[in-house]
């Protein structure tokens, strides 16, 4: 594998006294698509928030493009953020702006470009995600799949080196989800961008991932190619892949303690 664009070392995150991430290690290489998978509450969304600098770790480091997020000044972090794009689960488009204005927003805030140039650049990205004719609409006028594609257009408008997706297929029908998967692959091939996808959609992950990391109880259980992960005999991984419910074995005393504890 070539040099790592994302390096995570001994990452620990806590909410209050609850440990969410427990010593996570991860490397993502150039032009790699990495899927992070895990059940609900496994810590995958928290990991994503730390990767994109929205949360501060309790300990450990996250390096994006060689920059340790904890040591960057405000200005340095802003510049680094221009090198990454994030497509949030719900799109997170600004509801008061048209789709085109949403896509133009990062360009406008960076400054130095005239209105026409920004408009052309934004329209180009909308064409890439097949929304060329929908730039004048408000986000509320778009379908779920279109919102995700518009969010993707905004994420790639600055030609980032790293792209992050939070549950790109969530809430979409299988056909639209497959279209989005194709779009992710197309972006990697055409732009050479490294992509991290947090998802619990097995089919999507198997289709797009170069490597998959399985996270459980805040720890990376396993990282490997699609075939390697599918062949794993780890019980928790198999539970996830085979949609098996996990039953915790509690003693009578533990069960009573859980029922009677205040929180």
């Amino acid at each position: 594998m070539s040099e790592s664009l994302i390096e995570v070392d001994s990452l620990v995150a806590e909410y209050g006294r609850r440990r969410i991430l427990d010593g996570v290690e991860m490397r993502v290489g150039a032009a790699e698509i990495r899927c992070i998978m895990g059940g609900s509450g496994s810590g995958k969304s928290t990991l994503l928030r730390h990767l994109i600098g929205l949360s501060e770790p309790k300990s450990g480091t996250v390096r994006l493009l060689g920059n340790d997020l904890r040591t960057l000044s405000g200005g340095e972090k802003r510049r680094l953020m221009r090198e990454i794009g994030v497509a949030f689960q719900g799109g997170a488009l600004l509801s008061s702006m048209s789709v085109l204005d949403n896509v133009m927003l990062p360009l406008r805030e960076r400054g130095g470009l005239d209105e026409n140039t920004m408009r052309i650049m934004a329209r180009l990205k909308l064409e890439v995600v097949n929304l060329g004719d929908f730039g004048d609409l408000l986000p509320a006028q778009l379908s779920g799949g279109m919102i995700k594609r518009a969010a993707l257009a905004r994420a790639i408008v600055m030609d980032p080196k790293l792209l992050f997706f939070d549950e790109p297929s969530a809430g979409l029908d299988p056909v639209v989800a497959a279209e989005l998967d194709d779009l992710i692959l197309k972006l990697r091939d055409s732009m050479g961008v490294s992509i991290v996808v947090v998802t619990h959609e097995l089919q999507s992950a198997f289709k797009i991932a170069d490597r998959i990391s399985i996270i459980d109880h805040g720890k990376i259980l396993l990282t490997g190619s699609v075939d390697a992960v599918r062949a794993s005999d780890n019980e928790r991984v198999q539970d996830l892949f085979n949609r098996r419910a996990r039953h915790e074995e509690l003693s009578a005393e533990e069960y009573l303690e859980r029922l009677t504890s205040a929180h």
Partner: protein
Amino acid sequence: MPNPPSGGYFISFLDRGGRKSVAAINELGYAVALVVESFYWLLLGPFKQQPVRPSSVAERMMEVGLRAAPIVFMLSFAVGVMLAIQGIHTLRVFGAEGQVVLGIAISVTREFGPLITAILVAGRSGAALAARIGTMQVNQEVDALRVMGINPVRYLVSPVLAAMLVMVPVLTAFSIFSALLGGAIFCRLQLDLSYYGFWQQTIIYVAAGDLYQGLFKSVVFAVLIALIGAANGFLVRGGAEGVGAATTRAVVISISAIVLADMVFTYFLNRAGV
């Protein structure tokens, strides 16, 4: 979260009170930090290549100022009429109805103009700001701004603060004028006092200091409304219900803060002889 102490109602009461006090102090600290950061971006943003966009400020000025003008006029006019009614009724006991202009002019300029305007702006724009930022927070739009390298305070709060710093004093002046107009019309009908006479007396009674006092208060109220609205918006948790609660809270806290600040300023400004 630590378990609550076991030890009866009193301990539990103290525990809850302590937690709420800590939360309130945290929020106050957050609001103060928000004030500092908002002014920082307003003043230093251009030097950091992160200016507050004049178009955003203009848009907010329209919303905070021009669109509020009709309701400010209506309520201020009504208050002017009510002050005239009460003033004439009270002063008639002493046969001094002619002095009603003094009461109207001073109270409107120093108190009612700034207060009515601030309460209206808090209910209108402060609530809207809390709801807007709260909804953006819930929909991850604030997170989206952060990952685009856009500071949310600069983008969302500083333009509103700038707009309020300009428009609340302007609306206050408009409110004072509207209330005086209401008083003048009622005095004309009731006492047969000419508009010119009302105006002349107003100019005689109202000193520049009275006007400055009203406008100075309005600037303080503008800062309070913008920051209480923004702080409540950013602190929203828990979806649509949280946004509703934050909006209500922003209005209640803003109006309480305005009235309390008004009392404090009135006390000190009057002691200082302004």
